[in-house]
């Protein structure tokens, strides 16, 4: 099996919160040993990192791959290549395909496709209710046996609290993680922007940021009632943070994520109705963005995801209200996150705590860290190399990125899954 020695590296270790020069030895797909300073002489293939950063590969919860149903937007092959190029070594896929992944059979289809085509680890999630319709829970036990790592109806909020509380109770008995989209569904119905001066100026239907807090408050109450294991997919507003903080302090089994777009863009970026900036929930105010960055820094928000959502040109070339939501981000996740590093808001260990260690922990994976015995899922990147993003250079089948034409800094040099190189920048 493989036996590789990474020398002359800048090791980013989210477990110890350190960012220091060193070496790392990989054997049989796992991290064997590591150390500071100059590497010892070992019988191994040597990869000289040239002082670049070596970090645990990104574990991205909430990636949409459009199989089955819309393979022209993204396949397991294209998503896998995009992930590898973006330093994402594990994608945790969403069940909001058409049809939804809500039976063991459809989950097995996804697993087969992923194993055949994707060069990175693919862990599928399954729907919490049949057809994501919020009426009947799925076969949570069978789906777990088939490999579902979490259960979510994605952006469909289960409005019926009776259905949701039963699903949470049943999931608790199975030890299953439930991921929800905290949003008051009636208040946010039809919204394309966050209410505020910008939405008023552009005449767009808008939702108050309060809808997120109301959704989170409800979910927290249901967690108190059921004791389930819960992760909020995206917390994007300042007003939701105190509720999250209280819930954690009260000992509920709750974690929360946010999306890279809400960390790096705000509502004004929509400018003249640029539909590539239409995401769900909508981009927020600058005050909200700053509050969310601070929550990532303190660890109140646990994870950062790409919320990779491929959309074809047809579904985006429409008036803003009619256009589809979502943006591709597997390849831009790391460079966009590095913006927060370059402006001095988040250091690299904190970024990789949110993008690798915490998501891995939440899913019970051994990856996301540089400790001995962990899977050798690694990303080697140069945090400083500048470039202008050309969306047509992306490996995704869909190129709906809000970062098109923007200056970015930091590129992946190589990506390794279980010690095997799955991507190297040409």
């Amino acid at each position, binding site marked *: 099996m493989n036996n590789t020695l990474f020398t002359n590296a800048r090791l980013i270790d989210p477990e110890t919160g350190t960012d220091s020069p060193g070496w790392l030895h990989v054997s049989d797909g796992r991290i064997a040993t590591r150390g500071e300073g100059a590497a010892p002489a070992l019988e191994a293939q040597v990869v000289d990192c040239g002082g670049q950063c070596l970090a645990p590969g990104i574990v991205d919860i909430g990636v949409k791959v459009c199989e089955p149903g819309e393979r022209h937007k993204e396949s397991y092959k294209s998503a896998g290549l995009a992930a590898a190029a973006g330093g994402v070594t594990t994608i945790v896929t969403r069940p909001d395909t058409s049809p939804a992944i809500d039976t063991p059979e459809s989950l097995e289809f996804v697993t087969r496709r992923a194993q055949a085509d994707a060069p990175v680890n693919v862990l599928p999630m399954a729907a919490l209710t049949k057809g994501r319709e919020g009426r009947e829970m799925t076969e949570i036990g069978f789906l777990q046996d088939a490999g579902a790592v979490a259960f979510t109806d994605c952006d469909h909020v289960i409005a019926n609290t009776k259905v949701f509380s039963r699903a949470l109770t049943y999931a608790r008995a199975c030890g299953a993680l439930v991921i929800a989209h905290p949003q008051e569904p009636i208040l946010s119905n039809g919204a394309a922007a966050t209410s505020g001066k910008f939405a008023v100026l552009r*005449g767009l239907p808008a939702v108050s940021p309060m809808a997120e807090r109301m959704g989170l408050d409800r979910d927290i109450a249901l967690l108190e009632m059921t004791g389930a294991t819960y992760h909020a997919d995206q917390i994007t507003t300042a007003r939701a943070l105190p509720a999250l903080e209280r819930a954690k302090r009260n000992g509920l089994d709750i974690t929360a994520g946010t999306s890279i777009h809400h960390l790096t863009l705000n509502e004004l970026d929509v400018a003249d*109705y640029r539909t590539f900036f239409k995401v769900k929930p909508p981009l927020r105010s600058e005050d909200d963005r700053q509050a969310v960055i601070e929550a990532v820094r303190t660890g109140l928000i646990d994870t950062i995801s790409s919320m990779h959502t491929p959309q074809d040109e047809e579904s985006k*070339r429409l008036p803003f*209200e009619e256009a589809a939501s979502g943006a591709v981000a597997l390849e831009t996740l790391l460079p966009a996150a590095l913006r927060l590093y370059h402006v001095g808001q988040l250091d690299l260990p904190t970024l990789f705590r949110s993008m690798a260690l915490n998501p891995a922990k939440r899913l019970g994976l051994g990856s996301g860290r540089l400790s001995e015995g962990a899977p050798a899922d690694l990303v080697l990147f140069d945090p400083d190399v500048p470039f202008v993003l050309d969306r047509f250079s992306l490996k995704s089948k869909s190129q709906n990125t809000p970062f098109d034409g923007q200056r970015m800094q930091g590129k992946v040099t190589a990506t390794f899954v279980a010690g095997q190189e799955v991507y190297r920048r040409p």
Partner: protein
Amino acid sequence: MRFAHRHLLGIEHLSQSDITAILDLAEKYVDMNRQSTKHSDVLSGLTQINMFFENSTRTQASFEIAGKRLGADVMNMAMQASSIKKGETLIDTAMTLNAMHPDLLVVRHPHSGAVDLLAQKVNCALLNAGDGKHEHPTQALLDALTIRRAKGRLHRLNIAICGDVAHSRVARSNLILLGKMENRIRLIGPPTLLPSQFAEFGAEIYDDMNEGLKDVDVVMMLRLQKERMDGGFIPSEREYYHRYGLDAAKLAQAKPDAIVMHPGPMNRGVEIDGTLADDINRSVIQEQVEMGVAVRMAAMELLARNLREAA
């Protein structure tokens, strides 16, 4: 005077001098339109297409008359009845028309930003005839011309915009235009139809109409946009009329020479008293319609000049 815009998408993009240029030229057309022979050839040889994705009688007629009086070849397309029903996208429809080489495209669309989207795709000059809840620039310009003629100036006036501000593109365009011309603007309406964020545009917000109308020079009423509401903004039309409908008693709060405006079509007895709307001493509603044709002629002429220069 150079009008440095390819399209007329919204008031947001215009400067004070752009606005004055359109109004000054429009004055000329007001005179022309009052003569028995009302024809000019400034748009002769140009093709104007009116694409209305949303029902309109007066705005479409106004644009059509404006184009015809200036000698353009005018065509109306009722888009609701056509290819949209067959599933064609907005951009494809526009590209199809674009291939027929129109020079002026007048577009109304139910979604905010739809006209901005088209502007990225077509070669001709685009006039926004109203997009969703965003802008309706020619309405704001015709309102400005009406005010300027009635009051002798378009600055340092106290202007109240009353009613369904939330759903109104007319209110947004007027708010921007009248603000650019340095007027003091009050917005009056029930808070469900008047989001507090409008205060950030420098307007004063009132939910009491009697208080809001005190000493204003201009009272602009808005139509209650029942078709844009998904329910529950006001308890009933009669309560709305009682609290926010303009009648003689409420108007008495305004200056004695205050004028009353309405973009039409009116809901008589809902936002405005019928008798008051017809009172030629106070209401300038008919003049607004007249100014509409002149302002649209002026806007099209300025855009056409740029087209001819570019050719």
